[in-house]
C-alpha cells in the first residue's frame, strides 16, 4: 500500500469555549490563511499537516472541536487518543478565560495523564478590546505548569510556534514511551531542552526582579504626574527616560545613604523589645 511519508504521527486536539477562534487558529496553521467568517463547528472537524522537527517528519492530525456544552459527550471521546491538547481562550472575552479551569478539569477527567497541554490566549491583535491581561494568562499557566502563548490567527502571531512547541513537547517524551516502533535518537532528544515549558525562575532572581520592577512601576507614573506640573519648556535631557533615570539614581542614592546611616547606628542602639533580645540571644521565648 501507500508508503508512509512520515516518521511519527501526533494527534492534537483543540478545545475551548465557542467563538474563541479554534477553527481560525487551525486554518491559519494548516492553510496559512485567515477567514473572519467561519461557520460554527458542529461536532468535530479535522485537519492534517506534516511538519519537520528534529530531523523527523511528523504528521500532525489535528481535531477541532465544537465549544458548546451540548457537544461535549461527542468531543470528550477524542480526549483519550490525543497526545497534545490546546486549550484556547479569547483575550477579548473574560468569560472564556474564566472557563479555562473548567476545561482543565475536563482534560483531567478524559485525557491521558501524560498528555501535553498548552494554553493559548487568542485574538491578541485586538489589544483595544482586551479584557484578559497577559499576566493573568501567564499566572494560570504557571499555576498548572502548562506552557502559555498569546496568539493571533488574524495577524499570524505565534500560531506556528504554538503548534510546533506542542509537537516538540510530545516529541521530547516520545522515546520513553516504547510504543513507537521507529527508534528516535535518544541522545538528541535529551539534548534538546523543552522550549515551550517555561522553567520557573529561581526564587532569588524572581525576588530581585520584583524589587527592581517595583520602583519603576510606581515611580514612572509618579514621574509622569510630576512632569505635568513642571514647566514644560525646561528639558533636562534630550530623552525623557534619561530624566527618569537621573531621578531614580538620585533618589536611589539618597535612600542608600539613609539606609547606610541607619545600619551604622543600629548596633549601638539598645534593643527596643525584650522579645527581640531573647531571639537575638538564641533562646526561644515560650511565655
Amino acid at each position, binding site marked *: 500500500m501507500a508508503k508512509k511519508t512520515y516518521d511519527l504521527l501526533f494527534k492534537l486536539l483543540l478545545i475551548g469555549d465557542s*467563538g474563541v477562534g479554534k477553527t481560525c487558529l487551525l486554518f491559519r496553521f494548516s492553510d496559512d490563511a485567515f477567514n473572519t467568517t467561519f461557520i460554527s463547528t458542529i461536532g468535530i472537524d479535522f485537519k492534517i499537516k506534516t511538519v519537520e522537527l528534529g530531523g523527523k517528519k511528523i504528521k500532525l492530525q489535528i481535531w477541532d472541536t465544537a465549544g458548546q456544552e451540548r457537544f461535549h459527550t461527542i468531543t470528550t471521546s477524542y480526549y483519550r487518543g490525543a497526545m497534545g491538547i490546546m486549550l484556547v481562550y479569547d483575550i477579548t472575552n473574560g468569560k472564556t478565560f474564566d472557563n479555562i479551569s473548567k476545561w482543565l478539569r475536563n482534560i483531567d477527567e478524559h485525557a491521558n495523564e501524560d498528555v501535553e497541554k498548552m494554553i493559548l490566549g487568542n485574538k491578541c491583535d485586538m489589544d483595544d478590546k482586551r479584557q484578559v491581561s497577559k499576566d493573568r494568562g501567564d499566572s494560570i499557566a504557571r499555576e498548572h505548569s502548562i506552557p502559555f502563548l498569546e496568539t493571533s490567527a488574524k495577524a499570524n502571531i505565534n500560531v506556528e510556534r504554538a503548534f510546533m512547541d506542542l509537537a516538540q513537547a510530545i516529541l521530547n517524551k516520545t522515546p520513553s514511551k516504547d510504543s513507537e516502533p521507529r527508534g528516535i535518537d535518544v541522545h538528541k532528544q535529551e539534548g534538546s531542552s523543552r522550549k515551550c515549558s517555561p522553567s520557573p525562575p529561581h526564587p532569588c532572581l524572581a525576588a530581585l526582579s520584583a524589587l527592581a520592577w517595583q520602583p519603576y512601576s510606581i515611580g514612572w507614573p509618579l514621574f509622569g504626574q510630576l512632569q505635568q506640573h513642571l514647566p514644560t519648556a525646561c528639558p533636562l535631557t534630550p530623552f525623557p527616560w534619561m530624566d527618569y533615570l537621573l531621578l531614580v539614581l538620585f533618589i536611589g542614592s539618597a535612600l542608600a545613604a539613609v539606609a547606610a546611616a541607619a545600619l551604622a547606628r543600629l548596633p549601638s542602639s539598645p534593643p527596643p523589645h525584650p522579645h527581640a533580645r531573647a531571639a537575638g540571644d538564641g533562646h526561644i521565648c515560650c511565655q
Partner: protein
Amino acid sequence: MTAYRTRLKQFSEVLGTDVVDMDKLRKLCFSGCPCESGYRSISWKLLLNYLPLKKNEWDSWKEKQRALYSQFVHEMIVKPGSTVNNKNNADVTMEDHPLNPNPDSEWGAYFKDNEMLVQIDKDCRRLCPDLFFFQRPTEYPCEEMVNASNKVETLRKRVEQCVLQSETVSRNWLGITNMMSSRKKAHEEYSVLSEGEEAHWEVVERILFIYAKLNPGLGYIQGMNEILGPIYYTFVNDPDVDCRRCAEADSFFCFTNLMSEIRDNFNKTMDDSDFGIGSMMKQLMQMLKEKDPACARKLEEQELKPQYYAFRYLTLLLSQEFPLPDVLRIWDSLLSDEKRFQFLITMCCAMLILLRSDILKDDFPTNMKLLQVSHFFFNFLFQKCFR
C-alpha cells in the same frame, strides 16, 4: 420548458383547491418546489404543519399567529426598568434594579439571558458567511424596535462588548506630555447599519432568542441557526409582500414545528436513547452495511466513526454540506418525507456510497477530509439520489 410549466400548473392546482391534499403536495414537493409564485414558501408552511389544510382559514390563522409572535417579542425582549419608569411610585425600594437579588427580578433574568444571547449572537453573525444575504438590512425590521417606544431593543446591542478606552502617556523631546489614545479603529467585520435598520441575521437572532426563552429545557444549541436559516431565507425571498413582511413570525412558527420533530438531535441526554442522534447514526450505518458492505467495513476498519461526519449531516439536515440554493432543493424532499426523517438517512447513505471508490482506496485522514469537507456536488448527487 413545457415540463416546467406543467409543474407550475400542477402546483397551482394542488394549492388552489379549498382543502389542500397533502399526499399530492408531498409527492409534488419531493421532486422540488419552484420558487415562482411563492410555491415553496406555501408548501413548506403546509409541510411543517404551520398552515391549516383549509384554505379559507389561512388568513385568520396567520393573523392570530403573527399577533402571538409580536406578543412574544413584547414579553421576552423587554429592557428591564422600562416598565416602571412611567409609574411615579414613591417607594423607590420596591423598584427593580440591576443588583436586585430577588429571583423574579427583571434585571436578574436579563443578565442570565445575556449569557445565552452571547452564544446566539456569535453564531448568527457567522450564519451562511458565503452569502451576503444575512448581512443585508431587512425590508421589514421589527416594528416595536423602530417605533422608538424603546421598550424593545436590538439584541445585538445587548451583548456588544464595551471596553474602557485606555490612553498612553508619552512625552516628546521637549518634555511635553501627550495623552495618546491607543484605541485603534476597531476592525469592522460587519458594517454597522444605521439606526432603525436591522440586518437579517439580527432577525434570525431574535427568533432564536425567543425560541430559547420559550424552551428553557433545551435553550439554544449551536446549529439551530443553520436550521432556521433556510426557512427564513425562503420566506424573505418570497414574491408575495405579505409573506415577506411577516417572514419573521412565520419562520418562528415553522422553525418551532420543525424543531419539535428534531429537537432530540440537539439534546445531549437523548444521545444514547432510541430517538436521539445516536440512533440516527446507527440507522445510517445499518443501512450502509446492507447496501454497501465493503464500504461500511472499510469505514469500520479505519475507525472512521459516524460521529466524525454523519453527526453534522444528520443534526443540521445537511444544511452545512451544500450551498444554500441546493439546501433548499434538498429540503423540499426532506420535508415532504412522510416518515420524517427517513429520507435524510437514505440520502446520507447515498452520499457515502457515491464516494465509495475514494473511500475504499484512501487512508483514514484522506477519507476523513473527504467526508468532512462540504464538497458534494449537488447535480451529481441529484441524478443518483432522486430516482
